[in-house]
């Protein structure tokens, strides 16, 4: 079946080159031999995700921002608030516009003339999840009922693509909303809203419109886990290499109250049994607890400063 069965190389370097060549020529068998030992090439257990870190507020020109690293996948989310006039049938509701972009720096397959195919798919998925999970109460984004409300532009940039892009993007969006600081605004003479800066706050004659409402309350936060299913194995949090070799992905999104927000399985060679789906949900639940702990720690680290 494989060329390396009968051949035993002597020195360490030759053995390394053999492994590398096997990896390149027969990637699927390379992974299957690892899976048979219940381990992955980067020595993770099958159900374990990579190390995750969250850094809040890296971009000072945005009203809220977060940088998330899951293993090598790096995603930066930033929110900028602008004022809009709300629609007539919902006069005291703000709005959120979600955009996910993969600039050419993130991966060798993305070129300036040829944008990545997955970017709009992930953007749509993200905006569906954020709207339907009830993370944000849009009424908190309202300023003057019927006249002015906040439009939150959430822009997510992938800085390095190494698998699990949706997970990292959702986590960065949640972290950016938790970090968001709404600026104080007051009504100027010509009917527009302008920001009140710190020096003018005391001596200005104008009253700030939104003195009480500086941070958004995040009632429930959604967390997701992407898994790959191959034969009878479930691999959590795949790298981009694993994603390219095995094509059946399942994304489970749970919120912090352990309710299922979204389940997404788009085609793929393997058809799932309900038992496999249940196992994926259990893995997602563990991941949700890990992630909410990490998010809570980084938020409290910000409070201390």
């Amino acid at each position, binding site marked *: 079946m494989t060329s390396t069965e009968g051949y035993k190389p002597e020195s360490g370097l030759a053995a390394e080159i053999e492994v590398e060549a096997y990896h390149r020529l027969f990637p699927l068998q390379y992974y299957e031999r690892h899976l048979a030992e219940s381990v992955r090439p980067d020595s993770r257990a099958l159900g374990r995700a990579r190390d995750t870190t969250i850094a809040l507020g890296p971009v000072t*020109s945005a009203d809220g921002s977060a940088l998330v690293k899951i293993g090598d996948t790096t995603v930066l989310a930033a929110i900028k608030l*602008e*004022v809009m006039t709300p*629609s007539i049938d919902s006069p005291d509701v703000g709005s959120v516009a979600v955009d996910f972009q993969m*600039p050419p*720096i993130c991966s060798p397959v993305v070129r300036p003339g040829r944008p990545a195919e997955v970017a709009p798919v992930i953007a749509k998925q993200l905006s569906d999840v954020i709207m339907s999970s009830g993370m944000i109460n849009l009424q908190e984004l309202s300023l003057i009922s019927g006249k002015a409300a906040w439009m939150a532009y959430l822009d997510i940039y992938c800085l390095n693509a*190494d698998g699990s892009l949706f997970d990292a993007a959702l986590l960065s969006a949640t972290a950016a909303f938790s970090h968001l600081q709404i600026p104080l605004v007051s009504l100027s003479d010509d009917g527009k809203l302008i*920001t009140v800066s710190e020096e003018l706050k005391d001596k200005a004659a104008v009253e700030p419109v939104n003195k009480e409402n500086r941070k958004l309350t995040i009632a429930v936060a959604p967390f997701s886990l992407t898994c790959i299913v191959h034969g009878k194995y479930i691999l959590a949090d795949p790298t981009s290499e694993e994603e390219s070799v095995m094509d059946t992905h399942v994304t489970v999104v749970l919120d912090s109250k352990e309710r299922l927000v979204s389940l997404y399985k788009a085609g793929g060679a393997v058809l799932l049994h309900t038992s496999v789906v249940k196992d994926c949900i259990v893995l997602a639940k563990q991941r949700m607890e890990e992630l909410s702990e990490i998010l809570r720690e980084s938020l409290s680290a910000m409070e201390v400063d």
Partner: protein
Amino acid sequence: MATGTLGTYSPSQSLERRHQQQKRTDFQEVDWARSDGRNFHQCRPAFLRTGAASSASGSAYAEFGSTKVIVSVFGPRESKKAMLYSDVGRLNCHVTYTTFSTPIRGQGFEHKEYSSMLHKALEGAIMLETFPKTTVDIFALVLESGGGDLPVIISCASLAIADAGIMMYDLVSAVSLSCFGKNMVIDPTSEEEACQDGSLMITYMPSRNEVTQFTLTGEWPTARINEAMELCLDACSKLADILRSCLKDNASELTA
């Protein structure tokens, strides 16, 4: 879904304009304090790190004050099929801004002028004969624009190219300088840049004592140009030392 796309405006617009008018009168005086407490001939502290993006051949992240730039280098890789054969390698530079890099949200756009200036600045320093028929792609993404963007992009790009192992004659460092009447201010922030009378940017290879790019714009009293050049060249050599020590630290981390 997005109901107000036509009519959104940023609330901080009119306040900024009022501030700028104030500042314009301030800058004409002889002595004024810079917003971040530096004196006129002091550059911003630089934070540099290589290896920011693992999927690229080489990458670097630079943070000068509030200007944050990430640069990835891919290559040498196959040129596009449409390109004719060439004996020397090709460079393809691309500078993009994120939508949240400026205080007022803009569209994420490619800055064509900066892309071509970056190309000119690096062309002279890279040994193009070492990779014929192939292209090296250099992509820069400006995460936050706090003034003096192009010099930071150039310095960060030369660090990324060195990280990718592409042969260069020397590391390239760039510094810009603003002129306000009689005063000269090095490494300006974006508020200072907005009210400047003239600007000078030099891209320099210190070990070979060669300038790869020299850009002078605006109103300059002739006597000051020489002095401005000396200041810039000095700052460039110091910056190149910092770039070099960053590369050395990274290399020692890998072997350790």
